[in-house]
C-alpha cells in the first residue's frame, strides 16, 4: 500500500516543547501525493503547513520538536525512521524543496556557481546515485539546468552573487538547484510569494511546465488559493494542524463543503463587483491550548455540541472528495 504513492503521510502528530508548555501543532495529518501528481496544500499562516513540509523533508529540528505518532512514507520508505545518513542520500535527489524567499535561501557570500556545484557534487557521492562526475561534467550540468529555468547567460550567472540578481532570477536559480539532481518529488513552499505578482506568475508557469514535462510529483504549499487553481490537480485544505477538506481542484473551487473552506473562498475579494469580502472572525488557535475536538469549532457558524467533543474524521462525500466535519458525519447529522 505504501508504495502506490510518492508521498504518504499517515496520522502525523508533531508537538513542540516551548516555554509555555507543549505546542501541539499537527494533530493527525493525513496526506498523500500520487506519482506524477500535482497536489496543493492550502491554509492560512500558522496552520501547520510549514511544519508538515519540514517534517517530510527531514529538516525539522528534533528537539524542540517531538513526533509522538505518525508515519511519513516517501516512495515506500518511512522518512521518520530513517537514519541521518539515509536522509542525506535522498535529500536533493529523491525529494527536493523550493524555498519561499529566494534572497534568504541563497548564501550571500558564495557565488551561484559554487553553491550549484556543491549541490550537484554531494548528490554524486552517494552510491545509489551512480555516476561520479568530473568537474567539467558538473559544470555542464549546472549550465544545463540554468538554461532549463530560462535564465539568460548562465555562464555569467554562475559567477554572480545572489545580491546581483533580481528576485525572479534568484527564484529561478533556486528552482534549478532543486531540480538539478532530478528528484522524483518536489515540495514548493509558497514559491514566488516574495516576488512581484507578474514575476510570480511567470515562476509558477515555469514550475508547472517543468514539473509536467518531467513527471515530477509536486506538493505546493501556499496560502494563496489562486495559485492552486492555476496549477494543481488536487487540494488539501488545512486548518490548525488538521486536514479539513480534500478534493480535486475544480470540485473544491466550485463547491467547498467544509465551513472553513467556505469561509476561505468567501474571503477572497472578487474583481467583478459584489460585496466587500468578509474575513473569518477569530484567529488561529494557540497550539499550547488548542480547542478540543474540531479545532475550528470556536470560529464556526455551524458549530454543534459534538464539534467540541469529538474530532471529526475525514468522511468521503464523493470519490476523492473528503471532509472532516460533523455536518456530514452520522452523529452530526443526527444531532442537528
Amino acid at each position, binding site marked *: 500500500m505504501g508504495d502506490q504513492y510518492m508521498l504518504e503521510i499517515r496520522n502525523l502528530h508533531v508537538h513542540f516543547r516551548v516555554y509555555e508548555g507543549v505546542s501541539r501543532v499537527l494533530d493527525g495529518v493525513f496526506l498523500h501525493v500520487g506519482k506524477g501528481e500535482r497536489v496543493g496544500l492550502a491554509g492560512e499562516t500558522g496552520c501547520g503547513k510549514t511544519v508538515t513540509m519540514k517534517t517530510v*523533508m527531514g*529538516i525539522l529540528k528534533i528537539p524542540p520538536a517531538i513526533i509522538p505518532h505518525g508515519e511519513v512514507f516517501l516512495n515506500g520508505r518511512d522518512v521518520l525512521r530513517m537514519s*541521518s545518513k539515509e536522509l*542525506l*542520500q*535522498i*535529500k*536533493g*535527489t529523491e525529494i*527536493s*524543496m523550493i*524555498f519561499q*524567499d529566494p534572497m*534568504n*535561501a*541563497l*548564501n*550571500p*557570500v*558564495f557565488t551561484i556557481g559554487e*553553491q550549484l556545484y*556543491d*549541490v550537484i557534487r*554531494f*548528490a554524486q557521492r552517494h552510491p545509489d546515485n551512480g555516476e561520479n562526475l568530473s568537474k567539467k561534467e558538473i559544470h555542464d550540468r549546472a549550465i544545463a539546468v540554468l538554461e532549463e529555468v530560462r535564465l539568460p547567460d548562465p555562464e555569467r550567472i554562475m559567477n554572480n*552573487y545572489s*545580491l*546581483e540578481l533580481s528576485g525572479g532570477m534568484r527564484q529561478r536559480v*533556486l528552482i534549478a*538547484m*532543486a531540480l538539478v*539532481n532530478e528528484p522524483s518529488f518536489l515540495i514548493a513552499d509558497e514559491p514566488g510569494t516574495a516576488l512581484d505578482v507578474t514575476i510570480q506568475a511567470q515562476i509558477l508557469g515555469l514550475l508547472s511546465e517543468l514539473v509536467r514535462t518531467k513527471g515530477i510529483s509536486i506538493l505546493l504549499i501556499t496560502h494563496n488559493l489562486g495559485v492552486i487553481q492555476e496549477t494543481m490537480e488536487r487540494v488539501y485544505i488545512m486548518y490548525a494542524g488538521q486536514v479539513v477538506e480534500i478534493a480535486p481542484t475544480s470540485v473544491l473551487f466550485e463547491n467547498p463543503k467544509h465551513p472553513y473552506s467556505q469561509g476561505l473562498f468567501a474571503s477572497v475579494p472578487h474583481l467583478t463587483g459584489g460585496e466587500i469580502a468578509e474575513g473569518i472572525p477569530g484567529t488561529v488557535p494557540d497550539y499550547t491550548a488548542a480547542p478540543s475536538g474540531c479545532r475550528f469549532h470556536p470560529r464556526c457558524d455551524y458549530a454543534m455540541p459534538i464539534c467540541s467533543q469529538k474530532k471529526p474524521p475525514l468522511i468521503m462525500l464523493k470519490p476523492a472528495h473528503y471532509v472532516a466535519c460533523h455536518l456530514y458525519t452520522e452523529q452530526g447529522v443526527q444531532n442537528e
Partner: protein
Amino acid sequence: MKFSYFLIERFLHSILVLLGISILIFIIARMLPGDPARLALGPFAAKEQVEHLRHEMGMDKPFHLQYVAYIRGIFHSDLGLSFQTRRNVSLDIAHYLPATIELVMMAIVWVLVIGVPLGVLAGRYKDSWLDNISRVVAFIGVAVPPFVVGLIGQLIFSYGLGVLPTTGRLSLLTSMPPTRTGLLILDSLIAGNFSALGDALRHILLPSFAVALTGIGQITRLTRGSVSDVLGKDYIEAARAFGIPNRYVTFKYMLKPSFIPPLTILGLTFASELGNAFLVEQVFGWPGMAKYGIRAILRKDFNAIMGVVLIIGLAFVVVNFIVDVLAGYVDPRIRIREEG
C-alpha cells in the same frame, strides 16, 4: 574590476585620514603651553640658548610652514628631535616600537585563539553551559581595565604563585639573541636560542593577555551573535535540504558569513589593544613605544608625542585598510554596496 575600485577608494580614504590625523596632532602639539625649549633646557639656561634651541627646532617660523616642514621631514624619516633623548624621534621609535608590536601581536593571537573559537562554540551551542561561560568572559573582558588585569595577574601569578616574571621582556641573566626583527620571539627562534625563547614567552604571557582581554570580550560576543544569527538563516536550512552534509554546511556555509562581522571590528579591536598597551606597558615596565610615549607626555616632549601618535595613527589606518579590504574580498555585499 569592481574589487580594484573598492581597493582604491579605501586607499584614498586612508590617506585622507592620515593627513587629518597629522594636522590634528600638530595643532594639539603646538598648543602646549609653556615654552618647550625652555622646559628642555631648564630654568637656568641663558635666554640666547633658549632662542637658539627654538630656532634650531624651527619654532620661530609661522605655523603652516612648520607643518609643511614637518610633513617633509616625515618622508625623510625625520620626526624631529626629542627633548629628552636628543635623538631623532624616528630613531627612538624604531628602537622602542618592536617591543610594542610584539606585545600587540601576541595579544591578537590570544584574541584569535580564545575569542573566536569560544564565540563560535557559544553561538553553535546557544544557552548551553559553554555559552554562559562565554558571556561571562565577554562581560568581564570588557569591564576590567587592562591595568587591573595586569596588576591582579601579577599579584596571582608573579607574587602569589611565582611562576611568571613581573617586569621586562627578558630576565637579567638571559642573553638576548641577535636582533633581526626586534621581536624577541622571532629572533630567538631564528637564532635557535630556545632558552631565550622560553624566557621571552614567559615574560610576554601576562602583559599580552592583559592587553588582549578587552578584545577577547568583544570578539567572543560578536562571534557568538554572528554564528547564532547565521545558523538561523534560511540558506543554512536550504543547504541541508539540498543534501549537503551537515559538517560541510557548518564549516563552509556557516563559518564564512559568520566571520564577517568579527572581521570588521578587528580594526577596532586592534585600536583598543593599542590603547591598552599604554596602560599595560606601564604596569610591566615593558620597554615599548607606549611607555616612551607616556614619558614624553609627562615631560611635554612634543616631537616625541607627535611621533608616537602619528605612528599609532598610521598603524591603525593600515590595519583598518587591510581589514576593510579583507572584508570586501570575503563578503561581496560590502564591496558591491559601496558602489551603490
